């Protein structure tokens, strides 16, 4: 804006000066020319009278000294007799000059001539003397343009000065005008109105400011809510624009071990190059809702990819990442449990129905009948134990189970168990011993007995012939420890966590060489949970196993 003001002012000032100058010049020039012709006319009249009185020679003797113009005297036929500027003898005949010709004819003549070469304007006036001779006076001034051009250059200096002055003034004025405008605080536009003309404009700004502030606040609130939700949730969340990451929450950063600055705005493949993630993104971009499982370092994640649809076009993907390792494990366990339970129930039943069929058909020799019945009885007993174990377990599962707690002497109970198991141990030449102090705990006797019995039973069952079993009780910082150490076949480290699962057996063949239902340690675990106790396994293959139950003191 200031530039434009400067430009138009410059044009205006220049034009004004030029127009004024030119007008003044022409006026002055006309006056000058008029003056000159008048002077020349007067001079010729005056000189003519003097020459008439004094004779032609008087010109050469000083008469012409006071005259500025050029004086020429010619005879009646035009030969130059005298010239004040040049040698008369060398001058040509002047009869043809218009002013002289006119004077010869009419007694007086005048003419004005213009010389383009010298840019001069000349004026001549001639008068016929009494003796027939012609007296001419001429004078010369610069022509209009000859006078004008040097003047124009003289004009430049004031022009430049004027322009500088006007620029300075404009600068000052516009600054003074703009100062209050620039000082307006646009955050509070109505508090300092510089010009009344601006009020409607400022009011509008004030309204918009208000609206804007509300919107920003609203947006900030929404943003905070979004961040609070996404950053604190346990599951990973990634939002993409087509293939590029727009946002990735903390959980997802942790899962994929990536920092936001490493992947923001980058292709999703940078986050993780697992094929499954790519499939989810591609599928979602094709408009499908995708669910896939993906495993990173033994952790299974479920990926959900959903398309983001804006105005009918698919603009991105929201990817949800959930840790489903536990769910997956539980699923596997359930599957294994049902497979196991049906296997465990079916095997004795098959034996029973097989033997019974033989008996029914009468194929069995009478002397063998007793043996067969014995087998059927054995298998039925097995089934009964199994069903009893299952019932016990489900009882323990019942959280509301509340039996009366009593004080139990671990020593007494261990002794009782040793006596019960002694025959089985003797058969395999296994020695059982007890060491430690007499310690008592508070608990439900039936369940504690069941637990300790199962652990001791296992120690004998999975022992080697002529092995030893040592039961120890001691009081430590953790609480009251009751442990059984055997010298048996041991449990590989990888299996140690799983032995407490129902029907889980280290020996996958489900061999019944050792008997047992596969539920014993499950019962131990559940019983321990009921009493707030912990079960610890310490074992190495072929080295033996120590199982410790730690009761809270």
């Amino acid at each position, binding site marked *: 804006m200031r530039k434009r003001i400067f430009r138009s002012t410059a044009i205006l000032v220049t034009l004004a000066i030029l127009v004024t100058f030119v007008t003044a010049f022409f006026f002055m020039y006309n006056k000058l020319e008029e003056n000159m012709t008048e002077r020349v006319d007067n001079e010729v009249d005056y000189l003519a009278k003097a020459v008439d009185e004094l004779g032609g020679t008087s010109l050469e003797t000083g008469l012409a000294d006071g005259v500025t113009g050029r004086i020429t005297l010619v005879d009646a036929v035009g030969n130059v007799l005298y010239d004040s500027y040049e040698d008369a003898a060398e001058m040509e005949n002047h009869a043809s000059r218009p002013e002289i010709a006119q004077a010869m004819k009419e007694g007086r003549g005048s003419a004005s001539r213009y010389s383009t070469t010298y840019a001069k304007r000349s004026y001549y006036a001639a008068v016929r003397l009494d003796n027939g001779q012609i007296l001419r006076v001429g004078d010369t001034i610069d022509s209009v343009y000859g006078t004008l051009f040097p003047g124009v250059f003289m004009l430049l200096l004031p022009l430049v000065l004027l322009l500088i002055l006007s620029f300075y003034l404009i600068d000052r004025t516009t600054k003074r005008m703009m100062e209050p405008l620039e000082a307006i605080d646009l955050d509070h536009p109505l508090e300092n109105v510089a010009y009344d003309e601006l009020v409607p404009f400022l009011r509008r700004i004030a309204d918009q400011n208000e609206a804007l502030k509300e919107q920003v606040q609203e947006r900030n609130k929404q943003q905070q809510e979004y961040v609070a939700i996404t950053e604190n949730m346990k599951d990973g969340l990634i939002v993409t624009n087509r293939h590029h990451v727009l946002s990735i929450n903390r959980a997802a950063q942790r899962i994929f071990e990536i920092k936001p600055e490493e992947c923001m705005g980058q292709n999703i493949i*940078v986050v993780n*190059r697992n094929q499954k993630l790519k499939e989810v993104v591609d599928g979602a971009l094709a408009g499908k809702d995708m669910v896939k499982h993906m495993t990173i370092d033994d952790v299974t994640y479920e990926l959900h990819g959903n398309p983001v649809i804006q105005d009918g076009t698919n603009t991105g993907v929201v990817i949800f990442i959930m840790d489903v390792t536990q769910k997956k494990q539980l699923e596997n366990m359930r599957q294994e449990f049902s497979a196991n339970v049906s296997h465990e129930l079916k095997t004795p039943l098959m034996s029973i129905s097989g033997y019974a069929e033989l008996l029914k058909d009468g194929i069995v020799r009478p002397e063998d009948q007793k043996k067969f019945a014995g087998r059927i009885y054995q298998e039925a007993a097995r089934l009964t134990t199994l069903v009893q174990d299952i019932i016990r377990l489900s009882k323990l599962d019942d959280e509301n189970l509340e039996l009366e707690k009593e004080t139990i002497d671990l020593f007494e109970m261990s002794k009782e168990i040793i006596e019960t198991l002694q025959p089985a141990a003797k058969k395999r030449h296994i020695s059982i011993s007890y060491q430690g102090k007499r310690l008592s705990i508070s608990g439900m006797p039936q369940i504690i007995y069941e637990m300790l019995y199962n652990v001791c039973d296992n120690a004998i069952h999975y022992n080697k012939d002529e092995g030893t079993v040592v039961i120890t009780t001691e009081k430590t910082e953790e609480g009251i420890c009751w442990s059984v150490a055997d010298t048996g076949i041991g449990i590989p480290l990888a299996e140690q966590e799983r032995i407490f699962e129902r029907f889980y057996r280290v020996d996958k063949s489900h061999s019944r060489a050792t008997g047992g239902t596969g539920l014993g340690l499950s019962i131990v675990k559940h019983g321990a949970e009921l009493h707030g106790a912990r079960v610890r396994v310490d074992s190495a293959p072929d080295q033996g196993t120590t199982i410790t139950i730690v009761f809270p003191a």
Partner: protein
Amino acid sequence: MRNRFDRQLEELHVELIEMGSMCEDVIRKTSKLLQSGDAKVAREIRKEDSNIDEQERLVESLCLKLLLQQQPVAKDLRKVSAALKMITDMERIGDQASDIAEIIETTDFSVPTNDVKLAKMAETTIAMVTESIDAYVKQDLELVHEVIARDDEVDDLFLEVRQEIADDMVEAGDPMSSLDLLMIAKYFERIGDHATNIAEWVEFSITGTHKDADIL
């Protein structure tokens, strides 16, 4: 035009990561095959190897197109030329995995599953390949140096495995399967070298220095 250039560069980046991911996958499968000897896995590996070859051609043509059409300079040029070198190593990793699969498939010998050292070698090379690709994805110099340092680990393991095999040869007197085992160990050692090469080219694409020498 520049927009198109950026798009092409990104495409190259993505396809290269994809190829890296395929390599990781194929050697992970190889290590699994080593334990199970499952013929189905061996077939999968060979198929994956041909996929890697295809991917190599794709990345190669992307690189050449970029060089020809965009005449990249400075960092971009380094990226493209490093990519050209990296895919050669990745392709070799695929080949070597496929070679291991072939040995296991054609000769019916079973790798002693309790061969802890060979398993450790496989594990280390997998980690090296993964880390070298990671280094490329994250443009991480620290990871680059880790990978390069790990190569010695694999080399040492190879020497140990070789010693074991030599002892076995004398004791068990089954030279054929011992030789096969040695070949497998050597292939793993080579895969480790290729992972190191990849890491070195990643360093070049970041810094312009390859094996401590300015080559561009």
